[in-house]
């Protein structure tokens, strides 16, 4: 762990927290959907609750890491890694958003109310943001470990 920069530790902590909270969030959404209780109000409550929990975990984690090993300023390598992983994460997000737009259009063409449901669209967008962020964090760790 001592060979890790603050930015790499941050990426590991954020990725682990996001995977756990993301799994809890999407399993809650699926359970609500199976119980036919997935409405905008219930989804709003679940998403706000898990977002607040994620923020609290991340704030606590970063305070702990900074207290133990000290926060460091970014240097040119950190900025290059952040730019490249963010760039690829942005492409993934863009691809996901276009896929959702096609899903909405496709749903309209076949007259499917499911694929045009606001709660499905909102969760599809949440999933894409989740996937893009996971890709960005995983690439950040990869570039730190394997070089850039």
């Amino acid at each position: 762990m001592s060979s890790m920069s603050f930015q790499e530790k941050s990426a590991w902590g954020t990725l682990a927290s996001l995977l756990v909270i993301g799994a809890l969030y999407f399993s809650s959404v699926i359970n609500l959907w199976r119980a036919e209780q997935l409405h905008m109000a219930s989804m709003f409550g679940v998403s706000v609750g898990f977002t607040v929990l994620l923020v609290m975990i991340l704030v606590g984690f970063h305070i702990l890491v900074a207290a133990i090993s000290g926060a460091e300023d970014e240097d040119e390598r950190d900025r290059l890694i952040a730019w490249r992983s963010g760039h690829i994460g942005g492409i993934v997000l863009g691809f996901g958003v276009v896929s959702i737009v096609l899903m909405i259009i496709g749903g309209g063409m076949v007259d499917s109310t499911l694929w045009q449901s606001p709660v499905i669209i909102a969760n599809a967008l949440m999933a894409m943001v989740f996937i893009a962020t996971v890709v960005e964090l995983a690439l950040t760790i990869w570039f730190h470990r394997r070089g850039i």
Partner: protein
Amino acid sequence: MPGNITTRVRELRQAGAGMTQQQLAKAVGVSRQTIIAIESGRYSPSLEVALKIARTFGHPVEAIFSLEDDAD
């Protein structure tokens, strides 16, 4: 992933009285992890950092960094 640049940073850092990675990092203005990455060939530094490393060691930059093709 990184470019095909060979480096003598570790060799020059350890030469003479020796210098820690942390000391070199501070002299150049980057993190110790970046010095580790440069020494292990996992990162090719910017021209600015390469020139600062060269100035720290008192050698021309081409004596520290070279393309792998030139090493032959």
